[in-house]
């Protein structure tokens, strides 16, 4: 068989907002050996519904099977594979950086401004930065940040909505 092309996919689902739904989904991923890149769950405009956003890198048959398996979960009400062209994609990252000296401190502040991020905590020897944007943008910031020394990172995983 020919090797299928791997791509990043974002799958947005509407699920029942009740305990155990994330367990059922993640359990299915584990059982079927899907290697998910990220998963995020949050409330929607309706109290009884939640949005679960999944990102995965894979070829088309894998993603198709993932969508079908998600469809079989009784708590999953709606599934869409998002087209990145008309989707707003965001992720939030908190990054704790090592601050060696005053020069480093002002460089960090400069970079954070360029990335439209925010400094959310400052202490002696370290700073915490908040960056929001596409995963690429966060990756780009992290590449820069390694020059200072990264102490800790927390990323939310992707959340997304279709435009219009």
């Amino acid at each position, binding site marked *: 068989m020919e090797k299928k092309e791997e791509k990043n996919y974002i799958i947005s689902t509407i699920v029942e907002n009740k305990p155990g739904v994330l367990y059922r989904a993640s359990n299915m991923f584990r059982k079927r050996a899907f290697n998910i890149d990220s998963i995020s769950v949050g409330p929607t405009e309706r109290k009884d519904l939640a949005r679960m956003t999944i990102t995965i890198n894979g070829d088309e048959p894998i993603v198709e099977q993932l969508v079908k398996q998600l469809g079989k979960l009784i*708590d999953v009400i709606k599934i869409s594979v998002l087209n990145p062209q008309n989707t707003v994609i965001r992720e939030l990252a908190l990054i704790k950086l090592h601050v060696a000296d005053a020069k480093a401190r002002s460089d960090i502040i400069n970079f954070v401004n360029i990335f439209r991020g925010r400094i959310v905590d400052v202490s002696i020897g370290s700073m915490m930065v908040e960056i929001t944007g596409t995963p690429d943008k966060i990756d780009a910031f992290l590449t820069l940040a390694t020059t200072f020394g990264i102490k800790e990172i927390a990323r939310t995983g992707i959340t997304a909505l279709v435009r219009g």
Partner: protein
Amino acid sequence: MVKMSGSHALIEALYKEKVDVIFGLPGGAIMPVYDVLRDSKIRHILVRHEQSAAHMAEGYARASGKVGVCMATSGPGATNLVTGIANAYMDSSPIIAITGQVPRAMIGKDAFQETDIIGITTPITKYNFQPRHASEIPETVKMAFQIASTGRPGPVVIDLPKDVQTEVADMDFPEKIEIRGYKPNISPHPLQIEKATELLTKAERPFILAGGGVIISNASQNLQAISELLLAPVATTFMGKGSFPENHPLSLGVIGMHGTLEANKSILEADVLLAVGTRFSDRSTGKIDEFCPDAKIIQIDIDPSEVGKNRAIDVPIVGDVGKTLIELHNSLSKRLEKKESSLWSKRIQQIKDELRDKVRINQEKDLVPQKVLKELREMLPIDAIVTTEVGQNQMWASLYFKVYKPRTFISSGGLGTMGFGFPAAIGVKVARPDVPVFDIAGDGSFTMTANSLATSVSENIPVTVVILNNSMLGMVAQWQRLFYNRRYSAVELGECPNFVKLAEAFGAQGFRVDSIDEFKKAVKQALESHVTTVIDVPIPPEENVFPMIPAGKGLREIIY
């Protein structure tokens, strides 16, 4: 609205779902339900091990097409059900398992006999519920039955905390219920029917592979109509055995690892394969890359995730098998005339004639499994139901016990659970007291759930067990002979137990037979006496099941 306890609501809701029997065994965390059950019209059948309760519920379900119900207490009672639930999941059988649970406030505290049965059964159920308020019970039961029995059927667990069972609430019993995330796609897409019609009318060598879905969907007649219209031979998967009469001229028997030579050889000549209600399991297809690589494949299944899961499909059709076959037949009969024979049907007959009797059968002995099973078939009425255990006995049954009607052959396919057949037979007999029910068993498997003799005898549910007794875990021994240089490891069972005494100890009748004539006499006795019977049939310990396709090999590499 009526005020009642959770337990009353449960029994009432089960009653409304027309449940007439529950297989189970009580314990602390389910006692409130048992207290109500005592006075209800629902029959309770007491098991001696909860695993058997789940198998009985499955036997009941598969023989009747209805939902089977089993019940156990929390902790060990619930975990004992797990094998049976997993079995029902793999074979898409509609059962509902009700488990007791510790009171709400104790959940998560590792209380006495607390087990996270929701966590444990999530990967092996279609869905599971743990109502947190008694008032949720009527709607939970309604949903459970709907989920278990529709679409691709499967097991559902209802886990009931003890204080939810006793809580009194206003109960509202819904007639119908909408589950917004659950809408099985029943009707096939007309465009796909058209594409399938196109392929099949042009096919020169059409071939039908029928799976368990045909039986579940009660679609045997529709299948036969299409087969006869196309003059397409039919091989069934192991789970599909019974979906097509095995004495029909177009029948090739069961395909796969221990399938017939006819089925495994002729499918490779097909140019268009119509696969109906089958998931292309490795046991059916052998090495998937070598499975009909040049044939165009049409696959019909109600479960979209099964379509194309194991094999790329040319025409996928998602829909109920029965409904789809009717529409496909309508569409085909507009384009095709029914004929008596074709080049292809003659070729199939030729293959059958050529290969019949090609498989070696021990000619020196009388009591060999092949002859015993052919004899048994001749003695049993056409609508008798057989279950099997797992191992060589099961595969011999598949090859040599021919089945002519759906729901008359019930076996553990997907999970391959030793010990399934006997309790399943008891469940079958409860559903179908009007027909003889036989378990074709191995000595190893039967020993696993032989304690169900107590249930069979004391609840007066007479079934017959025919043990093909090779004093071996025969199938494992066969693999050790073939693939491990005859190095036997942990497969010799010896002459243990004495099955006649075992049967008698439980109050059943037992026979040890030493010739085919004695075997026939024992079967006759079983059929006439209406008591639980165990027939111990000593067979040569080193008999192999052939044909065989070694694991991981293609159909071509069949040995016989």
